[in-house]
């Protein structure tokens, strides 16, 4: 979805920072978004205040609220999929490699 959506803006995605947390992805204010998501998902109260202020200043408070909600939604989807063992399509192997990762054997299509 990220690759498809970014292509509609004629931009190029650099996916590795999504996993490493270091570098630019090609998404506007990606640095601030990822820092806020990190604070939310890691439930780091100390980091949350500053990360929220930085993102508010970049994209506005309502959009920042939406980032918090999207992070919540995908925490739900991640858990549901991991719980039921939905396999990862083998076609995603190339994307995983771009991310600097490998699809674990237990998630490969059965």
């Amino acid at each position, binding site marked *: 979805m990220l690759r498809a959506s970014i292509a509609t803006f004629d931009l190029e995605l650099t996916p590795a920072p999504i996993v490493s947390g270091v570098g630019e992805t090609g998404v506007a204010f990606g640095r601030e978004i990822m820092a806020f998501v990190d604070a939310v998902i890691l439930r780091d109260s100390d980091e949350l205040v500053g990360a929220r202020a930085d993102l508010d200043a970049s994209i506005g408070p309502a959009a920042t609220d939406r980032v918090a909600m999207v992070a919540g939604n995908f925490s739900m989807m991640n858990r549901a999929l*991991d719980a039921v063992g939905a396999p990862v399509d083998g076609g995603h192997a190339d994307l995983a490699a771009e991310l600097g990762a490998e699809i674990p054997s237990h998630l490969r299509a059965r």
Partner: protein
Amino acid sequence: MGLFSRKKRATTDDPSLDDIDGPTADDAAVDLSPPPLEAFDMLVDREWSRLANPGTWWNGGERLAIAADARRAAAGEELSGLLPEPVEEATRRIAADAASIRGTDVARWELEGLDPFSYVEVAGIISRLMALDIAAFGLGREPRALPKAENGEPSGERPDGAAITTGWSPTIGPATAPSSLSAVPAEADGMWDVHGVLYLSLDQMFDMQIEREGLSRPQIELTAARTSALNDCFY
């Protein structure tokens, strides 16, 4: 912090990318769509009703006991000891370490008495609760206290066609994101309710240029991708 503290934080130093696409604070100032907080509060109201009432395989008290222990697990706290052992372990793993779950775990829990359909309901309860608690944390809110249980018995509804196919729990059709909780339709309905309010409805998902509160689709999807990376999730 415990289980939530092991990942490296996002950093970069290229401000030139900040002008490529997506909203700025000025853009957000002219966005006439209402803030999403009211919709969030209404969603929590609905979820609390779902939690407190009998589900498909668990009654309201049992659903709330699972939810309470899921919160303890997410906070790195000791669990209550009230849940049967396989339910307690499944609760802890789904709440705090879902990426570590394997088919052998689910099979073992079944041998220890956790029915596969009941397990899907456990996954639905916990995954939605974590969604709302995590979003609330990002919104700067305290998690809402859990409700009191309502009386009644579980429905026991078992949909036609639900079976173990490509996953390790029953689904209707192959195990995918849309079908993940399909073996317990009420839990799948709840998931789509959360999904539509917090992220996008199924119809909206096909619109690659959609914005929500000025957040562009690439920014929405970057949020999703980073969340999945932090959760060690490959989907």
